[in-house]
């Protein structure tokens, strides 16, 4: 339990991820779903960056006075986060485009309502 307070950033990241996950899954509003997706991604990115960070660590550019890996933070998670952000942006863009199409066709953003309308349309 005490570990939870030491790693409070990671704990916060998991909570943000959870909120995003449930919003994406359960909230019927398309825009809120997309916000949920972005929160979910942000949670993971926070988790990853926090794991790469080291208190008292320097930026990962070699300094002749500082010898040894323990003096530097890990730059790789930051690189991964950048890649992840790019992926997240393209997915959000696709989702937003989809939402525009749905709104033009059904004039609502509520997915439950849209599914009901689509089913009616079919019959």
């Amino acid at each position: 339990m005490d570990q939870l307070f030491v790693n409070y950033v990671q704990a916060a990241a998991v909570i943000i991820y959870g909120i995003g996950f449930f919003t994406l899954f359960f909230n019927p509003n398309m825009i809120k779903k997309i916000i949920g997706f972005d929160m979910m991604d942000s949670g993971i990115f926070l988790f990853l960056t926090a794991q790469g960070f080291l208190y008292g660590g320097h930026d990962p550019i070699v300094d002749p006075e500082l010898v040894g890996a323990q003096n530097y933070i890990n730059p790789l998670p930051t690189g991964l986060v950048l890649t992840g952000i790019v992926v997240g942006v393209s997915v959000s863009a696709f989702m937003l485009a989809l939402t525009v199409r749905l709104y033009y066709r059904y004039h609502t953003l509520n997915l439950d309502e849209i599914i009901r309308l689509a089913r009616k349309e079919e019959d």
Partner: protein
Amino acid sequence: MELVQNFPLLSIIIMTSCGAICTLLKGKAAKWYCLVCLAATLALNLFAFFYTLQNGAYVYYMGRWSAPWGNEIKVGVIEALLASAFAFVMILSVLGGLEHILEDVESTKVNLYFVMIAFLMLTLLILVYTNDIFTAYVFVEINTIASCALVMMRYKPGKTLVATTKYMIMSLLGSSLFLFAVCILYNITGHLLMEPMGQEVRRLYAEGQYLFPLTVAIAFMGVGLSIKGALFPFHTWLPDAHGSATTTSSAVLSGLVLKGYIFLLIKIYCRVIGLDVLAGDHMPDVLFLFGAAAMVIGSVRAMQQTDLKRLLAYSSISQVGYIFVGLGLGTEAGIAAAIVQILAHAVTKPMLFCAAGGFMNVSGGSRKLQDMTGAGRRDPLSGAAFLVGVFSMIGIPLFAGFTTKLTLTQAALGHGSVKCVLALIVIIVSTVLNALYYIPTVSTLFSARNDLTPYRNRYAHYHVPYVAAMVLFMIVNICVGTLAGPLLEAIYAGLPSLGM
């Protein structure tokens, strides 16, 4: 380094450039260019397959940075075999649904359809070959976007829009879980390449460190990729997406896309986590149970369908269950059976979807089974292909499905525990259920009652691509069914490089 060793990467580059170039071309040129690129991919991967069959697996270092720093692709027999099979099925699915692509997709956007096909093939190649787990994540997401676009791309939207939305939401949940698992694994091992990661995981497990994060990572990985692979409790998106898309999209999505994710899961479980660590966490048991449930419930739900394409989609869910049962056995033979099923289903289901497209043509475009009464007689070629597919699904000897059932049964018998009995029962029940819904379908399709069908285009007009695709599909299906020996030999030769 020999020239052949470059071929898998070359095929990846060809597909990437094909996707980019097709955006600039007009529809017809894009079609031809995409087909030529797919054929080149097929040829290159076949060369790689025969090379690895003779010389064993090899690792291709991207930018020549060696492990554990660089990015790499690992080419083994199984990887090359699956990549060739995927390219082959992709070509045949495009040819088999070509007419419907031109009908269903807006004429100014036909080239974009082929862009998506190219990107889908690209991502499948990378999911099969990559040895870097974060690269896998990035291409999982690209694959999601490409396949969602393939579902959505129809002239008349409507149901496909809703289907795409559902598919997209479930896919995003799945890939975020996968990304979380990747992050956890990276944090506890400090590697992104699969082999160094695997060594570290085994060391941690032996020393008893970080067991809880490891379990969470294994579970998230399993659940994330099972959502994308449509394992039973997470299958809800599949029937809508596969049932409402155009013929080629349905064929490609259920024949190939699911398999890409599932093969990635198999690869990560074997190469990174290791089957012994996995068995310690009881993940195979969980996958086995859900796979077994999928085999039965997919078939039961398929029986209730009146729409032929939805019936085929539910049948995919039950077939995916076979793969997970093979994986869930957790033995070498089980994994081999899972890979055989990946191949067998990849050559069978697209054929059934293309045949369903043929039946729609002679039934006034309806997907309802009732409207297709006698369609098999009016369109004998699709009828023959559908029959071959049905025989394969039921598991009649000489057809692809029989190879799966044989290897899976052997794997189950070799396991010799309560799982063995359960697997045998489920295989028998599922076979009977398959027969129960496919045989009435066939009898409807070949019914002599023609009075129900007052359609204008009553008889089939064949086009060369369609005929070629169906004939090749039938030949390949029978080849997989009859050449089970050499196929299994090749798969067993490839298992060590998978990390067994």
